[in-house]
């Protein structure tokens, strides 16, 4: 059961990161087209709108992958003087705390997305609706939270010592 969920979570994480990567390449292309176009007197209308929204997509799209590869930075100053159970406790707390943060982000962004619809919020020049990008944040945050919950469970089930967040040196 857990294995199947894990497989799905991994797939979603990769998909999310793929969308984020496309977001980055979009940002590069859009800014370059704008710069070159402006030189010839024809800037790309809404280039800033697109690059800003692409940024939203790439930041949150990569979030689950970032967590999966242990990309979040923690302070390891006292790690060597800690007993194994304390390291483990810290890891479980971190994973659960992360899950709570991203579930909270999904929840509150859902609320905020409703408001964006009510206020008809969109980017200023070409009117990209804000609500779609908020939906993307919600999906990405849920995938991130799922990955964290799964790690908390597997940490809990595995024998000591286990370094959930320790970098792969």
């Amino acid at each position: 059961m857990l294995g199947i969920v894990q497989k799905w979570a991994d797939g979603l994480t990769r998909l999310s990161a793929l969308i984020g990567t496309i977001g980055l390449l979009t940002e590069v292309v859009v800014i370059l087209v704008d710069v070159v176009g402006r030189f010839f007197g024809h800037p790309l209308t809404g280039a800033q709108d697109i690059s800003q929204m692409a940024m939203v997509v790439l930041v949150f799209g990569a979030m689950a992958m970032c967590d999966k590869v242990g990309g979040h930075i923690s302070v390891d100053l006292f790690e060597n003087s800690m007993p194994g159970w304390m390291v483990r406790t810290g890891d479980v707390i971190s994973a659960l705390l992360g899950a709570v943060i991203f579930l909270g982000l999904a929840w509150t962004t859902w609320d905020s997305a409703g408001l964006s619809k009510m206020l008809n919020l969109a980017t200023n020049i070409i009117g990209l609706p804000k609500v779609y990008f908020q939906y993307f944040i919600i999906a990405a945050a849920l995938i991130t939270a799922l990955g964290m919950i799964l790690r908390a469970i597997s940490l809990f089930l595995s024998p000591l010592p286990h370094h959930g967040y320790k970098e792969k040196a």
Partner: protein
Amino acid sequence: ETIKFAHWVPPAHTLTKSTIEPLQAAVEGSGLEIEVYPGGELGAGPLEQYVRVVQGVADIVWGLQGYTSSQFPKTMVSELPGALPEGMTGYDLIWNAYDAGLLAEEFPGTVPLALWLSEPNVFIMKDIDVRTPDDLQGLKIRVSGSAAAATVEALGATPVQMPAGEIYNSLQTGLIDGVITGASAIGDFKLDEVANSYTLNAPLGHISFYVVMNQAKYDSLPEAERAAIDSIAGRALSQSAEDGWNARAQQVIDEISATGDNTVYSLSADERAAFEAITHPVTDEIVSGGGYEDVLKTMQGM
């Protein structure tokens, strides 16, 4: 009770003296106290100000309609070149429409305490004196919204979109040739250090502002405190704000005129007309395209 007023500019900004202090003075003694959080302390950036007040991060916020223009299509009509008739104030223009019930849907969940217009927009240029629309051909001009972009394009220049914080550097390196905005921005963003030619009295429209209060918070206040707010909310506070903006603009214009190394020029009526022939049709197109003829007429008191 203490309520929170949030904005994102420094405490020394015109906003404090022209708007916040009169509001604080009006509620003094009523039991209500207004605590100010400047510089974006309650949240990053100007774009989310309205969202913040609706969701209760702050009880009162200041903001520009132009940053989220899709929320304020009708209020934004007041910004367009030619919308404000000679001799009328900007806040009357907006409140006429608000009092007629035409703008309420653009301010859901809040009570507008002040709505007003900035001083007229001017050309802020580096090394280029603008006297006729011809002088603008092919120049790169920074704009912030789609209506301003349409105006700039009609004038034959290339609209460039960039964050306000980048204007200074961009004028300095020549990435842009100029900016269209209110004269007070010359002081706020230190543009006088990099620009050197200013053209006033061009028909370039204005910028609109709001101060709004969370509706639920307003409703929850005791009678006396609400009455204290009501005593200044509306045209009175808006007038104070608009007067403050205009005074600040005049002060900046006096300052840049006094330095001697700037060209400050006010277009004559004939010169202005040449620009109007181009910018007013853009306004007409936006107004009729959105179906805002009634809004504009009501604003102008017609």
